[in-house]
């Protein structure tokens, strides 16, 4: 039954998806969604306590408040009694004699028994929650299953069912966000390639160590749209503080778009490489050849051009975030001004290059619009 529901949902998405990326402007919107700046002020930190964003986090928060209320008398009572005793029984020099009692079995039994009772009360909701957190729901066959692999100092994510592997941004080498679907069960298998790490996004209320030679499982259902940030939570060496994590939770339709885009990722990167080596005014043959090669990989794919536009926009954003580092070694620092100036120059050139590529793409598609996609490439090649 659920399976059927899922299938019909997927079919719906397939129908709806093309509509989502026909408009030109939506490319930049998509880049904003799928390539948020983890290092900038764009994403605010949210946690289980400030803004729980998963079913687990909400339950953890409820459990926290319940236990807090049961425990809080044991915090407040000693403080109040202490203050009272300090004021009431201070020596005012009036010759008052101290009391002489040294034990009171009833009282002692009481302050042993009552805390034990409180602990029993707290245990009632916490044990079911503990077991729930360990095992994903049984009907989770539509779960988004992701293998998380930590390494010094980044994370790789593998979406088995979707055959997608992500991790490092192809342009600037920084950590890529994990993309999750709102209201869909997400199961993580977490492991490590080297030292211990821990995968943790505070807003989801889950954290699991990544240990070499082991797969640890955890699960949650994200229920809030948006980017979330977190970071490695187990000391893993020099880069521990900058081993950041971000997760983007999107609507199912956007996720379908994203999986489509990811299929075009590596071919698009080749175009990007050609494009960033090319300068306006120089011969356009390499550009045309790259475009041709790209389109040749996706015969009959109506979304290929859109994906290419997306990846060019995505890569441009990544490139502007990938400024060179001054470094700490003297020889690195000596060459830094040149490297930085070169990066700035490239950054400025990128706009013109992309414009030209866009024109080229438009020109070739209008030229060959009545012809089916696969044949259009043949025609284009003959032209060349």
């Amino acid at each position, binding site marked *: 039954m659920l399976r059927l529901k899922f299938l019909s949902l997927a079919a719906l998405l397939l129908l709806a998806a093309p509509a989502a990326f026909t408009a030109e402007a939506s490319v930049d919107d998509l880049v904003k969604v799928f390539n948020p700046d983890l290092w900038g002020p764009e994403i605010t930190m949210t*946690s289980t306590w400030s803004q729980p964003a998963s079913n687990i986090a909400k339950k*953890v928060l409820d459990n926290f408040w319940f*236990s807090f209320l049961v425990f809080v008398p044991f915090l407040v009572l000693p403080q109040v009694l202490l203050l009272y005793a300090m004021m009431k029984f201070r020596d005012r020099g009036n010759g008052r004699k101290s009391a002489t009692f*040294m034990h009171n079995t009833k009282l002692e039994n009481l302050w042993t028994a009552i805390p034990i009772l409180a602990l029993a009360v707290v245990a009632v909701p*916490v044990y079911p929650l503990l077991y729930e957190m360990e095992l994903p729901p049984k009907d989770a066959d539509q779960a988004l299953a992701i293998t998380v692999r930590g390494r010094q100092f980044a994370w790789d994510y593998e979406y088995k069912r979707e055959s997608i592997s992500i991790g490092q941004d192809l342009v600037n080498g920084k950590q890529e966000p994990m993309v999750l679907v709102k209201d869909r069960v997400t199961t993580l298998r977490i492991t490590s390639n080297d030292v211990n790490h821990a995968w943790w996004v505070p807003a989801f209320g889950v954290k699991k160590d990544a*240990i070499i030679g082991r797969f640890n499982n955890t699960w949650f259902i994200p229920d809030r749209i948006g980017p979330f940030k977190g970071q490695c939570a187990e000391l893993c060496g020099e880069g521990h503080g900058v081993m950041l994590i971000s997760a983007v939770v999107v609507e199912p339709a956007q996720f379908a778009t994203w999986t489509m885009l990811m299929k075009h990722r590596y071919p698009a990167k080749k175009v990007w490489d050609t494009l960033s080596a090319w300068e306006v005014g120089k011969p356009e043959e390499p550009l045309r050849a790259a475009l041709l090669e790209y389109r040749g990989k996706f015969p009959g794919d109506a979304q290929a051009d859109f994906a290419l536009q997306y990846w060019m926009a995505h890569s441009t954003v990544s490139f502007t975030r990938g400024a060179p580092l001054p470094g700490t070694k003297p020889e690195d620092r000596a060459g830094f001004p040149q490297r930085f100036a070169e990066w700035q120059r490239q950054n400025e050139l990128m706009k013109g290059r992309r414009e030209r590529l866009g024109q080229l793409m438009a020109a070739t598609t209008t030229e060959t619009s009545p012809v089916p996609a696969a044949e259009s490439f043949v025609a284009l090649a003959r032209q060349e």
Partner: protein
Amino acid sequence: MTAALLPQIKRHTGVMDWLTTVDHKKIGLLYFWFTLFMGIVGGALSGLIRFHLAMPGATIEAIQTAHLAGTDIAMNLFSENRHAYNQVMTMHASVMIFFVIIPSFAAFGNYLLPLMIGARDMAFPKMNGFAFWLLVPAALLMFTSFFTAGGAAAAGWTSYPPLSLMGKGANPGQDMWILGVHLAGLSSILGSINFIVTVANMRAPGMGWLQMPLFVWAVFITSVIQLTATPVLGSAVTMLLMDRNFGTTFLDASKGGDPLLYQHIFWFYSHPAVYIMILPGFGGISHIFAAFSRKRVFGYFGMILAIGVIGIIGFSVWAHHMFSVGMPTALQAFFMYMSFLIGVPTGIKIFSWLATMWGGTIRFTVAMKFACGFLSLFTLGGFGGLILALVPVDISLHDTYFVVGHFHFTLVGGSVMLLFGMTYFWWPKMTGRMLDEKVGTIVFWLMFIGVFVAFMTMHISGMLGMARRISVYYDDFKMLNLITTGGYVLAMIGSLIFAAQCFLSYRKPKVTENDPWKINDLQGGLEWATTCPPPVYNFETVPPIPIVEQMPKH
């Protein structure tokens, strides 16, 4: 008895006397000054951390801004030299645990325990001196490792493999750390054997087990824990040492070992170790509450039972440090409940201290202020502990600043406040000089406010998602880190004044009475039955046991 009849054991004077002494009082003072010095060093290391984290260049955003503008990162110490940060952080923890808090209780134990049970020295005086002098090379090993290739150990004081296995053969810092831990551990073991044997055999005639003062009981139980747990730590770090240097693969997953094995063995020591770091103080503070409330300790037997039960349960809660490593759920459930349970005996102690104050005539000397401050802060720390014991909540809080705030509340708000209080209380006995009460009051308020501000904000930043052991953090936590550093400054100023005060007290006039606090009519402590400071042999004749029954007869 004339002096001529006493055996002649004093062979040296001056510095050589201090270097070769086997007198438990001198060794106690050596421990005290060593730990005070180390405390300042450890505090300075934490100062580097705190000042860095309060600087504008310590945030991720600051780094990004600098990179995009092609400039250097705004003011910071470790934003780019993060390896140095990890070294400082590791050494701060190692120094504070192995060279400050654990041996500082040995200072009071050494000085006071024989006096309290009416003995003339510890059972093994030479071993006592040996145990202290082991600490010095241990500390030297750890500190000189800063100057080796690759610097000091940087894997945290927990030294989890595989991180602590990295750089084997090339960077000796981790190996030196391991050897330092071995020496410090050996010192602990020898010291605890000494305490156990002394308590078991050298009590004055007539002093039964249930006439022993609570401090003696606390040191005794702590020593049992220490003797049982420390060898386990030794085995854990030995595995590391062997894996690093001799080609074994205990902890190497690629060759059939298991890095988790280390964590279990390490915490099997290190959880009981947190009780090693507080139980003697629990005993000591009971004396202060009783003395300045002019009452006897409430629930003497319950107090002993509570310490004992903490000691026993303390061995079965270790895995609550590891709830996120992927343990069987049943084990998590077990360790969660055991961790809850350890709150019960702790609660018994807290309520018993309150009952000790109840109906008394309380004199607020500095020692009493520290005792009350301890009670308040420690309850807060214990409350955080209960919250952390809840596995689902702990999963979110594990390895965040909440944990850092929690254990600093118990270790600084707890152990250090206890130590300061005990120092003010027993300083006239140990040195024959009083510590100034007015200055002491300033120290108390600086410590109390500083500790509260610094570590309460850590709880908040942890709940909001700040991970621990990071040298750069998200911009969202800037203000909280600034406040924490403010709290640190207050506490550190307080500690420095305290250290200066101890040092300068030697200029003060000598205490002439045996019992400067005028408490012994009610307390009957043997340590107050001799001069301040006591003569070399403590008591010329075995003192009569003035102690009224500690245990009321039913």
